[in-house]
């Protein structure tokens, strides 16, 4: 894919992250001053409640994908600026794509799985 297209997606992903990560930070880390999701967003009850919400599940997966793309494409830019040879560029492209997709698959499973589902299987 052309670099211009990838770069445009990088900026678009940045805009998505700005909104979703801004929300995430406000809920998780400005919890005392704002209290949007209660003062204890990391307590299991609060985590389990968010896990059953369609809104949180969808935004988690969206944020996961946007952040992984933005992060790994940014990392690729940094590496490419060091003038790697054509072979190394190909390796970086394939390596970062595989790593990003694997993390996306794993993170999506964790976001979609019901809390505690992985330990309930067979038990």
């Amino acid at each position, binding site marked *: 894919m052309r670099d211009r297209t990838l770069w445009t997606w990088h900026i678009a992903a940045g805009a998505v*992250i700005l909104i979703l990560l801004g929300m995430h930070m406000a809920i998780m880390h400005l919890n*005392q001053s704002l209290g949007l999701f209660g003062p204890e967003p990391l307590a*299991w009850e609060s*985590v389990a409640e968010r896990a059953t919400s369609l809104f949180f599940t969808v935004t988690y997966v969206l944020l996961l994908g946007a952040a992984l793309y933005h992060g790994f494409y940014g990392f690729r830019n940094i590496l490419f600026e060091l003038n790697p040879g054509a072979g190394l560029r190909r390796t970086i492209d394939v390596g970062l794509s595989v790593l990003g997709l694997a993390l996306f698959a794993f993170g999506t499973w964790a976001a979609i799985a019901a809390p505690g589902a992985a330990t309930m299987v067979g038990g």
Partner: protein
Amino acid sequence: MASRGHPNRLGIWGWVGGGSWGFERYLYTLHRLTGLALLAYFTMHIFVTSTRALGPDSWKQAMDVVSGPLFTLGEFLVFAAFAFHAVNGIRLAIIELGYAVGKPIEPVYPYATSVGRQRRLASAVLMIAAVIAVWGGLDFFVLK
């Protein structure tokens, strides 16, 4: 993006030196450093938070591992890095779209540059990021 015909001879050294750079050059360096740090944190964050799928015991165990003053300080640094990277990212998008750089003018002595216009935006970025970081600091260390 791949460079075509203009190889980057300075390499990583270009992040901190190699010329008489303007102030924005160091925002560029800080944007990359915070970006790399956020990517490293995010990768770990995926694994830590995925313990939710293993149930309450695993979750509480994971939260116990990442608690304590050292982790609180580390998380605050991540929050501050996020504040800078986000606000500076907005500046980069504004500049990329051609705003806030001034209109093209005739190149007549004394030559004006767009730096004077961009500089105000860069200063605003640092101030807004600092305000958000201090706000986060209150939540991390004072109000908790």
